[in-house]
């Protein structure tokens, strides 16, 4: 039972916590200099460039693939433009063996971990090399090698799953943790409440990383919750909580690094709220002009996290204009070439329709599959992708 050690009052005073505001942690100004009193985390040049490279890769990929979608080469795409620092800064502060459970807008984390452009493309085009076997929509990446759980569309389901995954890590005693990303919109789901409360009770090494980018599709954050962001919810779970400028690569990195220490060394789960903005449309199916102004977007374009990091690198003399130009060009070329390659690869074979439902195909499904094959043999022209897989066979 709760033994409340709270003090007593004799008049009924209501509080909504407004007087207790959670501050925002920042280190890096837009011009690349540090705030007074701020101390940059311990990032060496190699790591800094790995981070920066992942950020630029993500931006270039996003731009090109949205273009490809507009040209009809791709059915769907989602950009993470504006949120690269939040995503990559946090992933970079982890061990590469820590588990990542993402929402869908975290391709930057994969880029940082070393997912190749080829690997991105294979998923986007659902070809025979797609790890997901062409079963999910574009951007539903996954990599067991890189400890990146395959994306699932239903929102927030990954949050209590992360709690369970982290509990398993704690039991295994392997010194690893799980980071779980989610939007401020997804945080309204019941699964959010479940996942955070259970994490606090069961003391799991998990980092709950909320990307507060101001919108859930068309719904602005102030129609999503009345409170000052997501961070105040940490109180309700007694969870260590921090709010950070999501466009500030150094602050995100340092906060996540400290969070990881709490998680792994003390089994204290942490809630991080990264304040940022979804600069692009929600997805290639969306048009934000119906629900927000260009002016509002412009304010945030000034806070571009990639430029901010570039300014810092330049100040440190770790990066030059020439290198920037070369990187950009190389990446653009690579994306285009890889896209062409990926588009040409055949789709996954017909049998992937029925495998992986269970560990083995059960008899009834097997019978359905045989029937399908016979049907395709009868109408090969109607199923051009698959007809070659059924020729002659039983």
């Amino acid at each position, binding site marked *: 039972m709760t033994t409340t050690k709270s003090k007593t009052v004799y008049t009924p005073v209501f509080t909504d916590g407004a007087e207790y505001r959670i501050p925002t942690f920042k280190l890096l100004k837009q011009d690349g200099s540090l705030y007074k009193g701020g101390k940059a985390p311990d990032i060496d040049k190699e790591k800094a460039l790995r981070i920066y490279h992942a950020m630029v890769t993500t931006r270039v990929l996003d731009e090109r693939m949205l273009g490809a979608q507009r040209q009809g080469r791709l*059915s*769907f795409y989602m950009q993470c433009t504006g949120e690269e620092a939040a995503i990559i800064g946090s992933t970079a502060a982890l061990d590469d063996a820590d588990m990542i459970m993402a929402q869908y807008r975290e391709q930057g984390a994969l880029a940082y971990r070393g997912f190749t452009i080829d690997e991105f493309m294979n998923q986007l085009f*659902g070809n025979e090399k797609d790890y997901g076997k*062409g*079963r*999910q*929509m574009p951007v*539903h990446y996954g990599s067991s090698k890189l400890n990146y759980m395959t994306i*699932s*569309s*239903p*929102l927030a389901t990954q949050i209590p799953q992360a709690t369970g995954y982290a509990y398993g890590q704690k039991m295994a005693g392997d010194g690893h943790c799980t980071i779980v990303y989610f939007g401020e*919109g*997804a945080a*309204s*789901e*019941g*699964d959010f409440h479940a996942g955070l409360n259970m994490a606090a009770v069961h003391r799991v090494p998990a980092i709950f990383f909320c990307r507060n980018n101001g919108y*859930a*599709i*068309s*719904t602005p954050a102030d*129609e*999503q*919750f009345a409170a000052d962001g997501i961070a105040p919810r940490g109180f309700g779970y007694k969870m260590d909580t921090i709010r950070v400028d999501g466009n500030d690569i150094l602050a995100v990195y340092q906060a996540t690094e400290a969070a990881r220490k709490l998680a792994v060394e003390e089994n204290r789960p942490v809630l991080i709220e990264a304040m940022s903005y979804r600069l692009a449309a929600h997805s290639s*199916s*969306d048009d934000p002009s*119906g*629900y927000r102004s260009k002016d509002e977007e412009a304010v945030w374009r000034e806070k571009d996290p990639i430029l901010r990091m570039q300014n810092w690198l330049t100040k440190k003399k770790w990066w030059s204009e020439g290198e920037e130009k070369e990187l950009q060009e190389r990446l653009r070329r690579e994306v285009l070439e890889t896209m062409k390659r990926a588009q040409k690869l055949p*789709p*996954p074979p*017909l049998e*992937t*329709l*029925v495998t992986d*439902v269970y560990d083995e195909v059960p008899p*009834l*499904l097997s019978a*359905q*599959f045989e029937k*399908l094959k016979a*049907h*395709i043999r*009868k*109408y090969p022209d*109607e*199923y051009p*992708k*698959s007809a070659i897989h059924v020729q002659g066979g039983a």
Partner: protein
Amino acid sequence: MAKMNMLQAINDALDLAMAANDKVLCFGEDVGVFGGVFRATSNLQQKYGKDRCFNTPLVEQGIIGFANGLAAQGSFPVAEIQFADYIFPAFDQIVNESAKFRYRSGNLFNVGNLTIRTPYGGGIAGGLYHSQSPEAYFAHTPGLKIVVPRNPHQAKGLLLASINDPNPTLFFEPKRLYRASVGEVPEGEYQLPLGEAEVLKEGTDVTVLGWGAQMEVIDKAVEMAEKEGFSCEVIDLRTILPWDVETVAESVLKTGRLVITHEAPLTGGFAGEIAATIQERCFLYLESPIARVTGMDTPFPLVLEKEHFPNHLKVYEAIRESVEF
């Protein structure tokens, strides 16, 4: 009469319902100023104000819980679930609450004013989570009504009937037809009956039964079959729960054969319920086994969606096999 696509027909129905009764409220994720991701609620906030048409936080169990409470209070909530694939977090509120509200209270309270709208079905390259047809998950739940329209005219009349029906109603909208299906729609208010299947075409050799977007597939298949000389009776079930056994049984007593098709996987799909009932009702009249043409027993795929789909060729083959049995 006006030419409309299905989205416009639905929007028109909502508009009329809100105009007629100021207790009708429309809400859900992004349904406010944006008008919903498919734009089914376009302009309703602008017309009826933010109090009557609004965005909710992103929480399906909350949307339906909220809607249940509103309905119990006497309002007429029309709640949107953005995709039928995302209705499952609200499963408890629908199956344990909406469906049982009246029964458990001895009719002291009810949520009969509740309507839940949600786009369902495949054919839009949506993969696992933007393609499901979950009607059968709900059809095991006494207390609910489940309605699926096949075209704009039906959509408007059935939606108005669902909103006015004194029972909680799930209204599944075939999103593949949202813009693709265009047709004449009467102006003003009209209602089409719930609980009644519709015989769209009479025939003598075989009854072909479906609902929603599958009716288009059936039309194509039947066209092929009739060319081969098979006379098909075509029925749109329209209401899945409680379903119209009489109309289907009467047809099968005449034709002696039944082909049922739906997009959802075979096992546990609603075609099973229909087949089980009809084999009992029409046992001595059946000339061939009742056939089901459905999605396969897998999650909904993406790249191989076409192969998975119960298309007109598969329905045609089933008709042929049924008649030639």
